[in-house]
């Protein structure tokens, strides 16, 4: 029987990790977008996602791939070896969330393997099972546990007690498997002798290798730390160069225009603050981030000072987008009518299923009823926009300023 790795190898390029650090493996973007690179697919997988990944890559049904591996593994063990090799070589997909159902299926799969092993024991007879198959199974389970430890995407890998107990259990199973194999093969007396020799040999090798291992480990840790430092420094330098230095240069060239200098300083202050205190806030996902971005845009276009306070948060959807756009329009109005360097207060609160936004300025008020119908500012872009998504807008204006109150329902979370 001639054996071959399943599938067409010409289109099958495992992309190797660029760095050794396994926690931070990055899948590099494919140079050729038409060619899909093979990756392990943790979602929907049984063991490590090798079969799922290969099936997705070559377009076979995943069951066929699994069956091929299984047949090869049972025939002469090559399937198992190939599986392990793919596990090491293929990087895992990290952009898909893990699914609980898939993890349950894996447990079922492992259970089936155990049942299969028991059936084999029945067929081959108890003697062979005790001296040969059972130790190898124990050894294999121990190795599997250790290998899953190595792979951060594997099921059950989380912090806490599991993190420390799993390697211990794995090592214990491997040791037990080896001991049982030797004892079963040559009997207790010879077995103990063989084990002693093995232990002495392993201990000696460990003693010889220990200084080197410790040195290598320390060196790796030191290099990793240095690299993190260097990355952080480079990021800071890039940020300072792109934003702070540019703004300082602009301020110097605008020294005769105090309003412009104040505006530049304010915009840069806001940018720096959000960089320092709200890393990773995404305006397409969070109401709070979207309002902050909206305020920053209005601030840089108009000479207003906008303070945004947000209590709670909501995911962005059509209604929240209307709310943010209407709030932005209200901020623009406040910036225009309340005079240069006007202070505008924006307060947003998500309370249960309602999101409310208040935009307040202290400029001279205006009477909504005296705004002509065809002037679209307040009517169209604030009130109309919100009413179209089932929200409400009210404008309260008086001698002490204007407050626009906006309200919309938050979608199901």
């Amino acid at each position, binding site marked *: 029987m001639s054996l071959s790795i399943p599938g067409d190898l010409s289109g099958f390029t495992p992309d190797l990790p660029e760095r050794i650090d396994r926690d931070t493996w990055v899948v590099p973007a494919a140079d050729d977008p038409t060619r899909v690179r093979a990756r392990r697919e943790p979602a929907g997988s049984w063991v490590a996602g090798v079969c799922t990944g290969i099936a997705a890559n070559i377009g076979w049904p995943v069951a066929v791939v699994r069956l091929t591996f299984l047949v090869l593994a049972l025939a002469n063990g090559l399937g198992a070896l190939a599986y392990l090799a793919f596990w090491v070589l293929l990087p895992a997909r990290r952009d898909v969330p893990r699914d609980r159902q898939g993890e349950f299926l894996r447990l079922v799969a492992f259970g089936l393997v155990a049942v299969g092993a028991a059936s084999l024991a029945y067929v081959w007879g108890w003697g062979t099972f005790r001296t040969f198959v059972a130790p190898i199974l124990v050894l294999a389970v121990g190795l599997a546990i250790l290998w899953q430890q190595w792979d951060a995407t594997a099921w059950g890998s989380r912090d806490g007690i599991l993190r420390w107990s799993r390697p211990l259990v794995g090592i214990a199973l491997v040791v037990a498997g080896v001991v049982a194999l030797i004892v079963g093969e040559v009997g207790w007396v010879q077995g103990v002798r063989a084990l002693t020799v093995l232990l002495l040999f392993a201990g000696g090798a460990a003693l010889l290798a220990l200084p080197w291992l410790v040195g290598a480990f320390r060196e790796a840790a030191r290099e990793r730390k240095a690299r993190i430092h260097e990355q952080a420094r480079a990021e800071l330098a890039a940020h300072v160069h792109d934003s702070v230095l540019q703004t300082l240069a602009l301020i110097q060239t605008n020294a005769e225009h105090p309003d412009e200098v104040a505006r530049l300083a304010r915009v840069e202050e806001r940018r720096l*603050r959000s960089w320092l*205190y709200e890393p990773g806030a995404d305006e397409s996902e969070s109401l709070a981030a979207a309002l902050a971005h909206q305020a920053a845009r209005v601030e840089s276009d108009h000479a207003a*000072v906008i*303070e945004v*306070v*947000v*209590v*709670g948060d909501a995911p962005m959807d059509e209604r929240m987008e209307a709310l943010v756009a209407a709030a932005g329009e209200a901020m623009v109005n406040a910036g225009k009518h309340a005079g240069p360097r006007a*202070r*505008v*207060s924006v*307060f947003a*609160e998500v309370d249960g299923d309602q999101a409310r936004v*208040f935009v*307040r300025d202290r400029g001279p008020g205006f009477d909504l009823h005296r705004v002509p119908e065809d002037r679209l500012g307040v009517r169209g872009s604030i009130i109309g926009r919100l009413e179209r998504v089932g929200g409400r807008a009210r404008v309260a204006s008086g001698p*002490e300023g204007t*407050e626009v109150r906006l309200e919309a329902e938050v979608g199901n979370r």
Partner: protein
Amino acid sequence: MSIRLVVVDDHAMVRSGVAAGLPDDIEMVGQAGDVDSAITVIRDVRPDVVLLDVHLPGGNAAAVLTACADLMATTRFLALSVSDAAEDVIAVVRLGARGYVTKSIDAPELAASIRRVAEGDAVFSPRLAGFVLDAFHGGVAESDAELDRLTNREKDVMRLIARGYTYREAASELFVSVKTVETHMSAVLRKLQLSNRHELARWARGHRVV
């Protein structure tokens, strides 16, 4: 009688800026640029109000507040900061500051805040009010203690402050007197200082403020 003020800030420009904007009824009787000299000056002149920068060379505002804990009955502290970071603000409030204002505040507003603190009332910036609403948000599963909840009225006041209302405007919006608003503010400040709510305790622990 005028209010006696000490300004603690490591930037001389901020200190002179504050001094230049003070009205007649507030008198600057001392200033300091770091923690040690601040403690000495405050103990020497026993001012009514200390305007205290959150970030100071030699140990930050927390060190000053801890060293002056025995003076809290007669000397009130108003924190001044450029930082929006909640942890900075909460730490100084938990240590006894009567309020918090940002450095972008204008002179009349600052004077009003100093007067309010001198009378023993609380001063909340919109951002601090927003943070209070956040920290006391929702039902309290871990405790039913009165300290761990805001009353509806206190929430209303906090919301209006967060919306940029002055005390007077908040009072007229709620159809109550300014004094009532001040009472609510002081109650909230007390809860902010003493509550063991998880969120507050976490900020405090992070900054070794117990």
